[in-house]
C-alpha cells in the first residue's frame, strides 16, 4: 500500500507491507523495518532497532494524529479520491473560524486591499480575543460575517483573492 503524507508542505511517500507482526516500510525509499502490535486502549507497541515505544494514533478528517513521549505529531493524509474535488479547489486563502466564537470586529470591507499578516478580523472565543490575519497579499472578495455574529468551527469569515504572482525584486 502506498500512502502520501503531507508534513509541513512536504509530501512524503510511505510504502507499507505487512507480514504478520512484521511491517516493512519504505519512507521515501528508505527501508524502515519494525514490529508493531496493537494494544487494547488505542495504543501501538512498536519495536524498532532503537527499542520499544508506545504510540497512540487517531484520525481527524484528513489529519493523522500521533502521540509519542508527550509530543503530538500531526500529519496530513489527503484522500487521493478527494484531492481533485471542486469544493476543495475553491477554498482559497481566505479565513475561516478555527473554533466556535463571536466576531468582535471585522476590520476590512469587500474590495479592500490586504497584505500578508494584516489583521482582518477579531474573534472572541472563551473570553479571549484573537486577531486573525491575512495569509497572503490580495483583495477581499467577500465578507461573510458581521460584528457580533456567532460563528461555528470552520465557518468561512472572509474570502481573499491573492494577488497574481509577479516577479518582484
Amino acid at each position, binding site marked *: 500500500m502506498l500512502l502520501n503524507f503531507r508534513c509541513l508542505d512536504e509530501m512524503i511517500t510511505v510504502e507499507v507491507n505487512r507480514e504478520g507482526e512484521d511491517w516493512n516500510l519504505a519512507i521515501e525509499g528508505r527501508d524502515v523495518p519494525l514490529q508493531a502490535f496493537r494494544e487494547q486502549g*488505542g495504543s501501538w507497541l512498536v519495536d524498532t532497532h532503537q527499542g520499544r515505544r508506545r504510540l497512540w494514533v487517531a484520525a481527524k478528517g484528513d489529519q493523522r494524529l500521533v502521540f509519542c513521549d508527550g509530543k503530538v*505529531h500531526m500529519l496530513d493524509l489527503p484522500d487521493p479520491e*478527494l484531492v481533485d474535488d471542486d469544493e476543495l479547489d475553491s477554498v482559497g486563502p481566505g479565513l475561516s473560524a478555527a473554533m466556535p466564537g463571536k466576531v468582535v470586529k471585522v476590520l476590512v470591507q469587500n474590495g479592500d486591499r490586504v497584505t500578508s499578516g494584516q489583521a482582518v478580523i477579531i474573534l472572541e472565543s472563551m473570553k479571549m480575543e484573537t486577531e486573525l490575519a491575512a495569509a497572503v497579499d490580495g483583495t477581499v472578495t467577500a465578507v461573510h460575517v458581521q460584528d457580533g455574529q456567532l460563528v461555528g468551527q470552520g465557518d468561512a469569515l472572509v474570502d481573499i483573492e491573492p494577488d497574481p504572482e509577479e516577479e518582484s525584486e
Partner: protein
Amino acid sequence: MSSGNETSTEIRPISRVLVANRGEIAVRVIRSCRELGIGTVAVCSEVDRHALHAELADVTVTIGPAEPGESYLRMDRILDVARETDADAIHPGYGFLAENAAFARACAEAGIIFIGPSADVIEQMGEKTAARAIMEKAGVPVVPGALLPEPDADGKYPADEVLAVCEKVGYPVMVKAAFGGGGKGMRLVETPEEVVRACEGASREAKGAFGNGTVYVEKFIETPRHVEFQIFGDSHGNQVHLFERECSIQRRHQKIIEETPSPAVTPELRAKMGKAAVAAARAVDYQGAGTVEFLLGPKGDFYFLEMNTRLQVEHPVTELVTGTDLVRAQIRVAEGHPLPWAQEDLSTRGHAIECRVYAEDPANGFMPSLGEILLMNEPGGPGVRIDSGIRQGDEVSMYYDPMIAKLSLHGEDRDAAIDRAITALKDYAILGVVTNVEYLIAILQESAFAEGRLHTGFLDEHMPDWESGRSVDGDLALAIAAVAEHERRSAGSGSGAGAGSSPAVSASTPWRYLGRFRLAGLD
C-alpha cells in the same frame, strides 16, 4: 452554622448534597459524598447532560442553556432544584458561585447548608482593601505601602515628605495610581534620587488616564513566589493550617503547576507563615476550607495577598502529602462537627506536584483548543492521581474553562515527584484537541525548575519562545501512522461496511477512529 460565625455545637446531619458546579470538581465532590453515604444531586447545562458529573450523581437536573449565566450561575434555579430534590446542603466547588456572598446568604435563608464559610466572611474577604485592613489589624504582614501627600497646584510633590514615606516603605518601591490599573501611572523606583520625579510623572499619567492623579507607593517585591497556606476552621472555634502550596508557575496569572512543600520554605519560615495564616483565619473566625495567599520575597519576607474562601483547584497536593480528604472534612464541618485534626496531628510526608492539563496551545498565546477528545489515555501507577471531568468522546466547548484534568503526583521527595510527573505526562495521550502536555514536560525539565528557583515570572523568563516539537516529523510517528492506516483500510474493505472505501462515506465521516476503535457512545 448557616447564620454566621457564632460558635455552636448543634449537629445537622446532611443527607443529600447538591453540587452547584461541573467538571472535575463536581466529580471530586460527588465521590466524597458517596464515600460518606450522602446522596448527590447534580445540576447541568443542556450541553452537559452526558458529562461525567451529570452521570455520576444520584439525580441530575438540567437547569438551562450552555452559557454559565443561564445555568451554573442561576442562583434561583439552583435553589429551586435543591428544594425540589430535598437537598439539605449545597457544595459550590470553586469558581461559579463559590465566592458569591449573595448565594451563600440565599442558601442560609432557604434553610440549606452552604458548604463553605459564612456570607459575611465571603463578603469581607472578597473586598480586597477591606481584607487587607482586617489582616493588618490581625498582625498578618501585608505589602508595605502608603498614600502620598497631595502635590501642590503645579503638580510638585513635597520632597521631604515623599522621601520620608518611601524610606519607611523601603526601596525599591512601586509608585502606583490609586484609581487605575493596566500599568498606567506606574513607576518602579530603585533609589531616593529618582523618587520625586517618578511620583510627579506617575501622577500626571494617572490624571490623564483616569482623571485622578492620586498615587501611592508600595514596596516592590522582586521575583516573588506565590506561596499559599491551606487553612481550615470549624464552628467550635478551631482553626488550623495544612501547610503550604507553592504556585509560582503561572501563565497569564493562572497557575498551571503547583507543589508542596515549597522548595523555598524552611521549617522556621513554615512555622512563621503558618502562624500568620492561622491568625488570618482567626481574624474572621473562619469556618470550612480556605486559602491564605502570600507573596514570598527572595529574602524570606512574606506578605498577605488575599484569602480565597473556597476549596482551591490545587487542593489535591495538600491531600496527598497530609493524607487528608478536604472535601470530607468540609462536609463534616458544615454539619457542625469539630475539625477531624488538631494542628499537632497534622504532618506531611513526601512531595506532591499538580500539573493542570489544559486544552490550549502554549505555542499560540495559550489559545483554547476546542473540539472532541478523540482519544485519551490517562496514566496510572503508584502515586498518580487524576482529577478529571472529561472522558474520551467528550467535547471541550467554548463555554467553560478548558481544563481537561489535574494530574497530581506524590513521591518520596521533590526529585521523585518531578520524575513521576514527567513519566506520567509522557503517557498522557490526548488526541483531538491541542493540549499543554508537552509544554508541562518542558517546564518540569528546566534546570531552574529542578533547582527549585521559582518565581511568578518563571515562564516569561525561561520559556518565552517555547515552540512545540509536534510538527517535527519523527520517522516513528510517520511509520505508525502508516501502519495504522494500513490496518484501518484493510479492516474497512473486509467488513463490508464500506468505511474508507468510498469517497462519499469518508468525506461525510470526519471523526473516525482507526481500526477497531469506534466513536464513544456507539460501543
